[in-house]
């Protein structure tokens, strides 16, 4: 019996040794110190794990350089939901588009307290404020076409649906009209749908290149749209290459359409500086620039690195690029100054995708 005891004791001792190697309880992540107000900074939307998790919002303070994680979760009693796509601040309200959950969560942009949600959406992508009472949400929808949902900002109800090209994505407002890039969604498309914001009716569909995704307006009021091109069925080569297209909003016609040469890289993420004179986009593993006054493709390499998300700070023209790492742990944001020199980087949530500058 003595021998038995010895053996049990050694098993027990061994298990304690092993157990001692690592704490059983996970370390509690550093608590969020809720800032008094989230002004003067950058919101980063973190998609979160697809299918079964929640996305989050991180905040970078320009003045202190500090980063706050999971703002929504810290100030509310429930998580944001699955796949946080984008965020827009309009009339001091934050509109957070939660794609897979089919909703837009509305928060007070400085306190991040929930103000309710816009529900019953299908695959929403971006929010755009139109006036004090009305907003637009672009969505891929579940029908035959993409859609823009008209939102009553006071009641947060959908008041009308505008059919657009497939896969309604980026939007920009020019005068009385909104220009919607129709990225193809579940299929493919090549139009920018123009909507009259007074009547919520489609003015026209402008044919641009294949699968336009992001859209911006320059200092001269011209509309620029980047088209990703069209992949073959197995996504190994582009059947139609990407294009950078300029639209004249006074005539709703294409000024010019500049094709990219690569058949393996799809241009994306069009952003513009604060003076509206230089555009930037991602292409071929880097960030390139384009003068808003140039009628040919400049293709000037600015940053020799690609990002998952790209933003440009309107207060100082700093670049913000996101790196999701292995897509199953927290990501990173890298900051560059206006001259595209690396400044610093900071950690954000899981799969950082978009920026919202406040």
């Amino acid at each position, binding site marked *: 019996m003595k021998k038995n005891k010895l053996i049990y004791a050694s098993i027990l001792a061994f298990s304690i040794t092993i157990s001692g190697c690592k704490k059983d309880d996970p370390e509690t992540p550093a608590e969020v110190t809720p800032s008094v107000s989230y002004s003067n900074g950058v919101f980063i939307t973190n998609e979160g794990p697809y299918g079964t998790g929640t996305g989050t919002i991180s905040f970078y303070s320009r003045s202190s350089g500090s980063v706050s994680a999971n703002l929504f979760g810290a100030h509310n009693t429930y998580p944001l939901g699955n796949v946080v796509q984008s965020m827009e601040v309009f009339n001091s309200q934050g509109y957070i588009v939660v794609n897979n959950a089919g909703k837009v969560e509305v928060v007070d942009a400085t306190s991040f307290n929930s103000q309710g949600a816009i529900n019953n959406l299908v695959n929403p992508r971006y929010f755009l404020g139109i006036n004090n009472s009305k907003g637009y949400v672009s969505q891929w929808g579940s029908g035959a076409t993409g859609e823009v949902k008209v939102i009553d900002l006071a009641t947060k109800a959908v008041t009308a649906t505008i059919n657009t090209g497939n896969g309604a994505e980026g939007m920009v407002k020019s005068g009385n009209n909104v220009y919607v890039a129709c990225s193809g969604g579940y299929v493919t498309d090549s139009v920018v749908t123009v909507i009259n914001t007074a009547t919520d009716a489609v003015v026209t569909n402008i044919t641009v290149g294949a699968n336009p995704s992001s859209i911006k307006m320059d200092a001269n009021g011209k509309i620029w749209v980047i088209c990703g091109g069209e992949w073959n069925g197995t996504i190994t080569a582009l059947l139609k290459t990407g294009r950078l297209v300029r639209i004249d909003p006074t005539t709703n016609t294409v000024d010019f359409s500049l094709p990219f040469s690569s058949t393996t890289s*799809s241009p994306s993420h069009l952003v513009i500086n604060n003076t509206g004179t230089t555009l930037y986009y991602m292409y071929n593993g880097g960030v390139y620039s384009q003068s808003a006054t140039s009628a040919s493709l400049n293709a000037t390499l600015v940053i020799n690195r690609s990002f998952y998300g790209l933003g440009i700070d309107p207060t100082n023209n700093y670049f913000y690029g996101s790196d999701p790492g292995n897509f199953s742990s927290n990501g990173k944001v890298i900051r560059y100054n206006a001259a595209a020199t690396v400044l610093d980087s900071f950690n954000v949530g899981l799969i950082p995708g978009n920026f919202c500058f406040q």
Partner: protein
Amino acid sequence: MNLFKLFFSVSLLSLTVSGFTQTVGDSVKQLKVVEITTSRSGNFAIGNKSETLDSSLLDRYSAGNLAEVLTSESQLFIKSYGLGSLASSSFRGAGAEHTSVLWNGFNLQSPMNGQIDLSLIPSDFVNEVNLQYGGAGALWGSGAVGGTILMNNSGRFNRGTSVSMSTSFGSFGDMRQQAGVEISKKRVVSSLKLFNHDAKNNFPFINSAQYGNREQQQSNAELKEYGLLQENYFQINAHQKINTRFWYQFNNRNIPPSMTQNINAANQKDELYRATTEWQRTGDKLTILARIAYFDEGLRYVDSIIHLDARSRTKVTIAEAEARFSITKFDLVNIGINNTYSEAIDTSDYIVNPTQNRVSLFASYKLHSKNNNWNAVISGRQEFIKSKTIPFTPSLGIDVKVLKYFIVKANVAEHYHLPTLNELYWGQGGNPDLKAESGWSEELSLIHKHHYKGFSWELGGTVFNRNIDNWIIWLPNNYNIWTPENVLQVWSRGVEYKLNLSYSVRKFKVQLSGMYNYVLSTNEKAATANDASLNKQLIYVPIQNAQGNITVSWKGTVVSYTHVYTGYRYTSSDNLEYLKPYAIGNINIGQTFLLNTSKIKVFVQLNNVWEETYQVLAYRAMPLFNYQAGLAVYFNQPNKQK
């Protein structure tokens, strides 16, 4: 009485071999054991920890599926997406594709994704489940990395004609009907089993991810499944046996949304045909086994919201032959060849529908002492695939009886997992240059067994270590296309304990069992620069889990309580996000009435009796208290004595 002698020696052997045998008095056990003699697991799985879930245990879960059985009765971690939803297994902190699932020796892992949904296996379609822990590439080939689930069916001769029927109903619209008929003569057994199962799974839950009213009912979770299993066993003569099996099943499931998703309209239909035949010739010197299987399995996943209609179908043909003989009185040799041909058809996921032919040669050599006090086995396997180098996988195992009441087991084995068809040929990003994941595993067990008067007990402890190199993960490449790469290196190690106590006097029996695992499974290699998952626990691998069971039986009444604890699981690979531990209590009550050779059984299964709110996967709702109740009748007409 040659057969009796055989049975006796075999049951002795199986006692030594299977470390942890759960036995609740079962009259059919004797004949089942004879089947084990010819199995590779019974003879050559030496030194690995193993558990057996026998027919009487499976009978308690007769109205359930294999995922439910393993969740409550094994040390595996079952990753379930919810009631009636996809469930996969993890042995010792490995992935779902690192569990080899063998049905009567045939691998059921999908050639497309290397996994199998355990919730689609009705527990009354198998007679016995054997869980073998540890890597065993030499014995079971690709996929036997974390461990192997062996599901076995066996024919029982000369039992007469029997008819069984059962019906059960439960919470959330759960209804199941089962029927079976068996004609068992001296030399022929033929049986047919049918089942039909419907469930709404519309259980209420508190959606903690919801604004406003959080009381919700699970939506889009309806399930319908039916199937049949037809088996034939022939004793051709004193030396030859042949059997055939045919399994058909159709499943139609809606896929419920996660808590953070609000709505889902997805639906998945699975349809499968599995046909097998096995012939064996047992001689004085040489035993030969030959078996062939043909599996045709299709899946269609439709999500109307995102305009997705994905179909896939695979056909797999497996042919295997083994020869077994002894050179001396103290050894046993096994040599075999396996050919597995897989093809994917009718799927839009690939540029060209791929095919794959794999040939493997395997051999084992066992030495044992005269009185079976020790057994040692050395095995090896070499698999061949065109234009791929696959490591030769050896293993060495030993079981030794020491100090009368102790058994020491040790095993060292190499293991491998071939990249799946999806990983190799997926239309958008498949990587044909992938290497097999492979590595070594080592384990050491100490088991103490004894009985005294009405008491018997068994205590076991196992220490294991395992490395998996070239672990495949999907990451976006330079063009933002997700593609699989051999990047991670996963190191798993831990301890496992098990305790069984039983006391019986006359017709009264009490059994107590407990299990505890402590498993670290960490990534040791950076996939990207500054990879935050370095040296961190893999996601959804609990470090600790424990299980306890008490079963009391008296005459025809069996009352059983099971308590399962699952520890923290990380949900992000940097280990910053995690899910809280949970403990689930289940009660099973069965009452059997015997009438000559027929019987009637009434049973009630009460799940989650402590109303624990828990998540196995993040934001996947699980039901609170739920039940199943049923009635089973069994009529038997014994054969007339000639």
